């Protein structure tokens, strides 16, 4: 993902040189994801204590919150790379945006699903139409719309650019999701971890949640790198290096 860009943007902005780099990095991120999730799950179930209010049902937080964070964060990253692709006409950034969308949509789905399962025992309902829940649902539709639009357009360059415009229009939704609990009085509780102010969670609970979030992050990078490799092969099939790569694979 953005990792490549940091040390040598120009070299790795070509699909040909990014492809092997992604291949090298991908297993490491995957391994990190497995380790972090394992540690996170251990803390979530065996170290973090019961919650005083909610009992054991709060343990859903360890996937719900990281998934919700990822759903918003991945959309921002997708919007960023879409914008870069639109402005600088760099193929790789458009490919990365395309590769991010399915993972983002999955995390949005997970956030909604676990939220429903958490809401039933604590609030007493699977779903309410409050601002936080509604805007998160719209985020899912935006991801789906992005994928559907790209799939419907045959010309690759146009698909990338049209998707980018849609992604950028949809970015408005992300701050609405994030701040909805502050702006409106919602059923959804406020943020336990915020940029300002101390977290309102017991330390071990917070630790478990943060490690799980880190694990999801690594997973997202690994999944995106794997997908972007497929996308590169498909789109660069007319080049000699892809022909050579496929020749080596088979």
């Amino acid at each position, binding site marked *: 993902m953005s990792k490549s860009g940091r040390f040598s943007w120009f070299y790795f902005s070509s699909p040909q040189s990014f492809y092997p780099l992604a291949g090298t990095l991908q297993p490491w991120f995957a391994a990190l994801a497995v380790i972090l999730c394992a540690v996170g799950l251990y803390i979530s179930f065996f170290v973090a204590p019961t919650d005083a209010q909610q009992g054991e049902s709060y343990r859903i937080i360890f996937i719900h919150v990281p998934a919700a964070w990822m759903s918003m964060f991945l959309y921002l990253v997708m919007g960023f790379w879409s914008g870069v692709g639109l402005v600088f*006409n760099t193929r790789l950034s458009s490919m990365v945006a395309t590769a991010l969308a399915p993972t983002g949509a999955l995390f949005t789905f997970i956030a909604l699903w676990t939220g429903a399962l958490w809401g039933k025992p604590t609030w007493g309902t699977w779903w309410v139409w409050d601002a936080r829940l509604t805007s998160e649902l719209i985020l899912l539709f935006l991801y789906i719309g992005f994928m559907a639009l790209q799939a419907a357009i045959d*010309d*690759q360059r146009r698909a990338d650019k049209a998707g980018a415009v849609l992604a950028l229009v949809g970015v408005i939704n992300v701050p609405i999701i994030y701040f909805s609990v502050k702006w409106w009085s919602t059923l959804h509780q406020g943020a336990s971890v915020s940029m300002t102010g101390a977290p309102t969670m017991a330390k071990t609970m917070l630790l478990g949640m943060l490690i799980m979030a880190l694990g999801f992050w690594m997973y997202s990078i690994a999944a995106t790198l794997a997908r972007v490799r497929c996308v590169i092969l498909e789109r660069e*099939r*007319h080049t000699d290096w892809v022909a050579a790569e496929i020749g080596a694979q088979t």
Partner: protein
Amino acid sequence: MLEARQLECTRGDRCLFTDLSFKLGRGQMLRVAGANGSGKTSLLRIMCGLVSPSAGELRWQGRPIRDEREEYSRNLVFIGHLNALKDDLTALENLQCAAALSGKPADVGRMLAALERFGVAHCAELPAKVLSQGQRRRVALARLALAPAAPLWILDEPFSALDVGAVVELELLLAAHLASDGMVVLTTHQEVQVVAHAILRVDLDLHTAALRAA
């Protein structure tokens, strides 16, 4: 002056042309030749600024057209495959809208004169949908006869669906435009009888875009 620098165009997996450079000066005509699917229309659309080339750039009066899109558009008349006529508007209204949108509104007398040149003045009050294919093409071409003319004309198969009389009329119009230091870019399958002090030719069939002056 219009200058193309190392233009490249790819559609899907196919590279239509690459490293295409030419210069088109005042009073010169550029004829783009090539077989079907060789990228003639794509080149014309790139030259209009409708499509950005996958590499290279176009310069108008020394400045990239990307930077001054509207300014460039005002110096340009493009007549493409489609006639850009609204079926429900009359020939006159169509011409009026086209002129207004290109930033050069004209009065009715001039427009009727332009239609007259292509022999469609009697259709001026008819909705475009009742016109024949040839008549519609003539109405579209009447934009060229509207004075004051934009310096650069880009025409995609302007002679298609025209009868002999209209072909001659268009050739005269092109010659007059070139004589008054205008520039013309066109694609066509038939030979053009236009007197001009330079007719350039780009042949897209020869992939390396050989350029020769006639």
